[in-house]
């Protein structure tokens, strides 16, 4: 039991992280795409397509942070100080973009809060990519505590991941707009989705080549036999999915490009898990090294099994309630 608990929890927290990335990904992506709208009316339409959801989406970020604290306190205590600056920058960027939802429409001039929304979304996305990238590269740990410097995270690989995640969120945002809006916004989003799709594939390829070269353990994981026989479908399915995103955009389908973009994210996430499991803080601390006591894990697990289905229930309800497209020029007045 004690051996399985951290595995169950890794799965749950993995789901929380991927839910966060996909859900907040599309509304951060809309912030990234904000400057490309031709006027504030179009921005109203874009923002309105995510307004009822963003708060719930961001709750998954709290869940990720708190989940780590609950179940893997040792990992939380190492990762947070190691990524101090990107974490704080991300949080401050999220402050600006979060309040921009409300402030933008009460202010005299929407321009400033539109800018804050874009800047906050873009910086937060970049910072999240950097956090992910530096985590893959590895954190300096001695005696179970972070022992590196404040700028350890500023490496070419982490910055590459930052740009990559920005493009990924751009893709999610653009395909979301394809699904949830009409008129010029949706038309423009089709082109933007293709643009970001190409960039995302380039970044995915770069990370996939870079990580095995950088870390022998990752090369070993993917290219040793028999692993290779089981793992080769991952990149193949990724390529197929990317092709489908492109094709469905061309066919002017509404929901399929967004859903396929999510699958692309899931595959990228799966690739990272394959590369790094069972490390939670590569290259030193595994999920078992960092897990909380079994009593804490079990107590939390009981609540999670009870509450998670309820959360998913009202999550589905709210998406069903606000189903359909936000029309072109749908006014606030």
């Amino acid at each position, binding site marked *: 039991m004690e051996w399985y608990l951290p595995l169950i929890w890794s799965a749950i927290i993995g789901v929380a992280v991927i839910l966060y990335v996909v859900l907040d990904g599309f509304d951060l992506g809309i912030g990234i795409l904000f400057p490309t709208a031709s006027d504030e009316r179009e921005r109203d339409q874009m923002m309105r397509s995510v307004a009822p959801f963003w708060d719930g989406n*961001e709750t998954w970020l709290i869940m990720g942070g708190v989940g780590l604290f609950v179940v893997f306190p040792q990992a939380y205590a190492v990762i947070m100080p190691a990524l101090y600056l990107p974490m704080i920058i991300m949080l401050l960027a999220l402050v600006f973009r979060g309040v921009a939802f409300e402030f933008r429409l009460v202010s005299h001039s929407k321009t400033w809060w539109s800018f804050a929304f874009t800047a906050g979304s873009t910086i937060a996305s970049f910072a999240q990519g950097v956090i992910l990238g530096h985590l893959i590269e590895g954190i300096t740990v001695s005696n179970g505590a972070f022992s590196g410097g404040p700028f350890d995270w500023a490496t070419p690989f982490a910055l590459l991941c930052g740009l990559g995640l920005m493009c990924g969120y751009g893709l999610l945002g653009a395909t979301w707009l394809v699904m949830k809006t009409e008129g010029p916004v949706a038309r423009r989003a089709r082109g933007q989705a293709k643009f970001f799709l190409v960039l995302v594939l380039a970044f995915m390829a770069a990370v996939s080549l870079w990580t095995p070269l950088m870390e022998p353990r990752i090369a070993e994981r993917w290219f040793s036999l028999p692993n290779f026989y089981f793992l080769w479908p991952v990149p193949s399915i990724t390529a197929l999915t990317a092709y489908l995103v492109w094709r469905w955009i061309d066919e002017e389908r509404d929901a399929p490009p967004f859903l396929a973009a999510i699958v692309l994210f899931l595959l990228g996430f799966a690739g990272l898990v394959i590369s790094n499991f069972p490390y939670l803080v590569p290259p030193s601390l595994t999920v078992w090294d960092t897990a909380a006591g079994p009593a804490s894990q079990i107590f939390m697990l009981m609540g999670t099994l009870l509450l998670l289905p309820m959360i998913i229930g009202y999550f589905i309800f709210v998406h069903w309630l606000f189903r359909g497209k936000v029309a072109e020029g749908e006014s606030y007045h």
Partner: protein
Amino acid sequence: MDFDPVLLARLQFAFTVIFHIIFPSFTIGLSAYIATLGVVWLRTGEERFHVLMRFWTKIFAVSFAMGVVSGIVLSYQFGTNWSRFSLVTGNVLGPLLGYEVLMAFFLEATFLGILLFGFNRVPAWLYVLSAAIVAVGTALSAFWILAANSWMQTPTGHVIRDGIAYPVDWLQVIFNPSFPYRLAHMLNAAYITTAFVVLAVGARYLLAGRYVAEGRTMMRMAIGLLVILAPLQLFIGDQHGLNTLKHQPIKVAAMEGHWDGSKPVALELFAWPDEKTETNRFSIAIPHASSLILTHSWNGLIPGLKSVPPSERPPVVPVFFAFRIMVGIGLFMIAAALVGALLWWRGSLFEQRWYLRVMAQCWWIGFVAVISGWVVTETGRQPWIAYGILRTADAISPVPGATVAGTLALFIVTYGIVFWFGIYYINRLIVRGPDQPAAAKPSDTFSNRPIAAARDAGGTTID
């Protein structure tokens, strides 16, 4: 330059948590008020309650957004700034925060979406139910976070192995000795704080001669609540104080400015506690009065600050003054509520302009009282971060002081901008006022924004 990382980490956390607590203190109360208005609206069918409900929901949306974004910061700061604390207490405190997220945050976030944007999409009962669920969510959130904070004050139900706290009995962890008092004190504080905001807005409208009917409803509802809750808070606070005396006597000694435990406790109306000479300077005090309050006996003794070495004492000055500010505001609140009730009873509440003028200025007093109360309890816990388990100085992350100083500056700039714009925009919503019933019929356009929804209904443009 030399930075003290412990002091900076404390300053940063104090700044971000004080900023944050402003919004929950308001939104816990305001969500309950909005839900009450909704229920009254459904039961009486009177449109003015619906108008008020929509009006306060707009203000709620702006406040709640600020509370959410500043709250996300906190959930990561435990790790970024207090990683030793996270490691030592994570097994016990982690699940409490986890339950807060799962039980409260998702509930609030989801149903807030329906409350803000769903008015034209759901039946009225579900709309009001969503408001009630949001109110329950905010109170549940308070339940879990106060359980966590109370455990840091009066930890029970755990064992320490290799310097790390492990849970033994979850019921004892959650319902630790100070928790019921802290929960009652804080929830009541949130309701009182909101009632003073509502009272102030109502008084403001009456003074200006605008939205007179709405203003009167707001004032009646606020005073009706305050005349019960404000005196009740004195009683709860007293009980909480006695509980603190039992479990954290040195905190009480700092609150009272009580140095010498061999003497009865005087009630220091004003003094400047001098930590060097271990005496109070410029003291104006009522002898024996605090002995009477704390021990119910004329010559009752409690431990003094000098009963422990200086290294075991909290900083006395902030605890001492914050306590006086909190109690002072609390007594003023009771007086304001009783005077209001008296005027109401005599039928002259809305004519006494002096009372309206004073009340219109009092929207902020609850917030100051809440912040002061938290300064008392958090500063009074020092030098411990988790009482008797971990010292604050041993709890910080291995992060250089300069980094913490730099991000503290960023927090001050960011929160400064967000705070003043937030106040400014809320004031604008108040100036714009509730939408009139004639225009408040559901519009056929799909409103996705709270403030936009208000414009739909009110037909006023501000740009």
